[in-house]
């Protein structure tokens, strides 16, 4: 072939070539400058990102601390439980999924819903699809076994241990111990910095909540490489890419020993079997330690603390919150009641101290007292009674007269000296304050006028006066020990998981009430008479051999109309509260006990037998423990060291 020579024509391009070379150099220089920026100036930053990209931290689980009673019996522990997780990107929906559904024993509906979720996660984002999602919570042992045997074929599905709180005594002491709940979104944002994660459970009520920060423990972590192919030498890679420290050991939560004796609580529960609702508290008068507290009706914290599935949990809560007897309410601390006649010893002390009455002074009881334009009723016709008899027989007329001669502020003041109207500071569960009405309180709430009759009502613990069961127990403990008001104490000590005591809590005195011991003796003699004398309001219901003193109470309640309550049950809610507040033994008191039977009727008939039986058990326990190890309060942990 022949081609004509066309060299001359190339001239048109000559001037352009130089510019093309310039353009080429500019282009590559731009790339190079950017490379310098990326690799030199931002090099460290990119290297750090690259390292983050291949390293991730595995969380190492910790265990929650155990709660024990004063004798070392376990009240709250952890039980192994397994959740099944799946990685949506890895699950083969055709082959693996149907088998997994079968192994996990899922219902058709559940399985379909989960399948939809997997499909939707997959379609949304390929990166999200590589993260685990919860398939089933708390599978039972059989399912776990089947999953473990078939682990090889179930690619992308994994059973992960996730311990659940376990309360061996069920509803016994449940209000005190508390229960757990799953952390919700709002809480999580608040608590994220404290190491909580989605799906965590934390204490919802009681000791579980108050001592959460001690119980929860601290998670650990361990760095690992992601995306390492199987054949690579993992140790060598880890040595190269994982910086020290490569792991942090988890710290188990602290164990907590309570002052509560669960056997005593059991006795309380048994003693209250005949009653629908109420509360019992036993306090050590020498320390203020709470030896037992019961609020009835109760709940099973095992059901509320998770590990039963969402539906069951929701049902349980619905049932508990719709119950008119308020099972979730801690009636020893969170609710207030008019103390009724159990307040009379304090009225008597105030009047004796002020000298407005003398012990020998008598009142003539004809079944009531006319004061102003109102007639104040007594529980019966007591004839002529002195202070001792008035306490023994619970004569209102005597105390109306006492009230007529005293300022209402004085009655409130002695109440507050004994810790009424103020939170005790137990710290567990929301605490009610109760109320010691003063003149200013009445004028504030009743449009400026004050009626003298209100003082009469205050003297017998009615009217606007309200107290909590715990306040009453502590104040009776103060009466019993000669006037020392203690800080209530629920936690004896904090221990590490291996049993070393980290912190022990000694009793704390709140206040020593200034009392004339002879005045106190008169009142206490009266309270012994309540049980021991023929006319005593509790005499009929005593158990022989049980040495106890105290005061019964029958507190009138605000009348309930049919509204809001089942009409068939109105009679119940209009019945008086039955009280007994006392201490034992009568002569050298060790414990104070308060029994409240909500809408139980008469205090002597309904509350005293409960108190009797509880004190009886306490005596037995004391004897038994004396024979074994020592006094109940000082018993060592039941665990073998």
């Amino acid at each position: 072939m022949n081609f004509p020579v066309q060299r001359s024509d190339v001239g048109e391009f000559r001037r352009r070539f130089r510019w093309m070379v310039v353009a080429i150099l500019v282009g590559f220089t731009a790339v190079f400058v950017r490379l310098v920026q990326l690799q030199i100036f931002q090099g460290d930053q990119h290297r750090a990102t690259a390292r983050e990209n291949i390293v991730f931290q595995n969380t190492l689980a910790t265990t929650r601390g155990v709660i024990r009673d004063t004798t070392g019996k376990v009240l709250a522990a952890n039980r192994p439980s397994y959740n099944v997780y799946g990685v949506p990107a890895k699950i083969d929906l055709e082959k693996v999924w149907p088998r997994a559904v079968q192994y996990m024993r899922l219902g058709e509906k559940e399985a379909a819903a989960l399948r939809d979720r997997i499909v939707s996660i997959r379609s949304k984002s390929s990166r999200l699809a590589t993260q685990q999602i919860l398939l089933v919570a708390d599978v039972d042992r059989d399912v776990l076994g089947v999953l473990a045997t078939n682990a090889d074929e179930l690619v992308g599905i994994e059973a992960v241990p996730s311990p659940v709180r376990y309360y061996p005594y069920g509803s016994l002491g449940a209000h005190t111990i508390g229960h757990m709940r799953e952390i919700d979104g709002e809480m999580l944002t608040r608590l994220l910095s404290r190491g909580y994660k989605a799906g965590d459970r934390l204490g919802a009520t009681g000791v579980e909540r108050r001592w959460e920060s001690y119980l929860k423990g601290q998670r650990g972590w361990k760095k690992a490489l992601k995306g390492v192919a199987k054949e690579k030498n993992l140790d060598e890679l880890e040595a190269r890419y994982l910086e020290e420290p490569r792991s942090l050991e988890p710290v188990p939560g602290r164990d907590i020993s309570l002052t509560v004796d669960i056997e005593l609580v059991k006795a309380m529960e048994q003693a209250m079997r005949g009653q629908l609702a109420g509360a019992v508290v036993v306090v050590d008068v020498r320390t203020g330690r709470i030896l037992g507290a019961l609020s009835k009706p109760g709940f099973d914290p095992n059901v509320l603390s998770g590990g039963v599935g969402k539906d069951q949990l929701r049902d349980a809560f619905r049932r508990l919150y719709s119950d008119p007897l308020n099972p979730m309410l801690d009636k020893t601390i969170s609710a207030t009641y008019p103390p009724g006649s159990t307040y009379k010893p304090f009225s008597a002390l105030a009047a004796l101290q002020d000298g407005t009455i003398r012990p020998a002074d008598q009142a003539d009881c004809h079944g009531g007292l006319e004061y102003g334009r109102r007639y104040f009723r007594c529980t019966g016709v007591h004839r002529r009674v002195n202070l001792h008899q008035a306490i023994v027989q619970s004569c209102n007329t005597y105390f109306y007269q006492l009230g007529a001669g005293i300022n209402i502020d004085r009655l409130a003041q002695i109440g507050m000296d004994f810790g009424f109207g103020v939170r005790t500071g137990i710290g567990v569960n929301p605490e009610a304050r109760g109320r010691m009405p003063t003149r200013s309180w009445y004028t504030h709430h009743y449009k400026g006028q004050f009626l003298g009759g209100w003082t009469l009502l205050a003297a017998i613990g009615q009217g606007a006066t309200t107290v909590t069961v715990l306040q009453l127990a502590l104040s009776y403990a103060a009466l019993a020990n000669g006037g020392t008001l203690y800080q209530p104490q629920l936690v004896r000590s904090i221990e590490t998981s291996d049993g070393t005591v980290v912190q022990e809590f000694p009793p704390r005195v709140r206040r020593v009430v200034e009392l004339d011991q002879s005045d106190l003796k008169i009142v206490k003699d009266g309270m012994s008479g309540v049980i021991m004398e023929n006319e005593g309001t509790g005499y009929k219901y005593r158990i022989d051999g049980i040495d106890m003193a105290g005061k019964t109470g029958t507190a009138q309640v605000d009348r309930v109309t049919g509204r809001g309550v089942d009409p068939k049950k109105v009679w119940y809610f209009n019945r008086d509260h039955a009280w007994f507040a006392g201490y034992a033994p009568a002569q050298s008191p060790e414990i104070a006990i308060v029994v409240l039977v909500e809408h139980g009727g008469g205090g002597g008939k309904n509350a005293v037998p409960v108190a009797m039986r509880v004190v009886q058990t306490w005596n037995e326990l004391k004897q038994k423990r004396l024979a074994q190890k020592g006094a109940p309060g000082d018993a060592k942990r039941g665990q073998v060291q």
Partner: protein
Amino acid sequence: MRGKDASFRGGPLIDMPLFLAIVAIATCGLVNLYSATSAYVGSGTHGKLADIYVSQIYWIVVGVLLGVITTVIDYRIFERWATILYWGGVFSLGLVWVLGSDIRGASRWIQIGSFTFQPSEFMKVALVLMIARYIHNDPQTEPRTWIDLAPALVFGLVPAAAVMAQPDLGTATILMVTALSMIAMTKIRRRSVLNVLGAAAVGIPSFWYFRTSILHGYQLRRLESFIDPEADKTGAAWHALQAQTAIGNGGLTGEGFMQGTQNQFGRLPDQFSDFPFAVFAEDWGLLGCLVLICLYAFVCIWAVHIASQARDRFGAAVAIGVGAIFFWHTLFNLGMAVGIFPVVGITLPLFSYGGSSVVTTLISLGFLMNVSMRR
């Protein structure tokens, strides 16, 4: 002085610098491909990908054979074939519509038996020949207007539009910038150039305004994520950010061959197709990159040099066209890896895995060699 005839009197003289540069780049590319896919060794699902460097070798062999053919046959013969090749290419682009197999939502491939090929790749070479032919046959002494150059622009626009419809924004861009680069060889009236700049000042903003109707969803996302990479760290921008992390991780001297963690731990997407340079930069660092960039720049500049030495207008235009394909591919790919261009699927010549790409590159370099040997 050579004779008047194109047949070699003193025997064919191979362009040694060009040859060595190509060998160097191809060797680096192959070694790098081995590193890029080594992470797949032993991983069940992607295990096969660890062996793609072997097929890359096959493709290089095929490419070299075809490149030798395009080197040996006098390039002026191709001037005569240019029209047929060009329209044949356009026709095969049309065929893609009918026969195209769908890969990642785009029909770019034609399958013949078990063999798939990508007409748009070969179209680039055909386009260069076609425009070179037009420039060759249209010598002018006066500065040109756009009307004079309109046929050349149309030659570029037709396949670009067809490729754009596949949709393949990257190849369409390459076709257009290649056409424009070749047009830029000619002497254009100063006013015409200013007109174009004015039109661009209006056109680019209005393109941005109508971008939703012009571009496909994923193209749009890539473009927008390029403008604002922080806005979407999980989607399209993810690839670019991972590539930049890998490059930055390389530092001055690199992590070492097959040691780049971004690549070895599977953090680098498309590491053997779109981002082989990120693998290279992570393994060899800035110093390695400097060598590689110099090699690429040398080939591009050498193409201009060959053009300036060419014996006729057609040869010069072909050299510039081939150089332009090579240059723009390299610049766009490196630019997107380092994050100064948006992510468009443009291959890095002799580095990216892919038969059509390798073969086309070697064929076109064959033309360059051809022109160089017949000046």
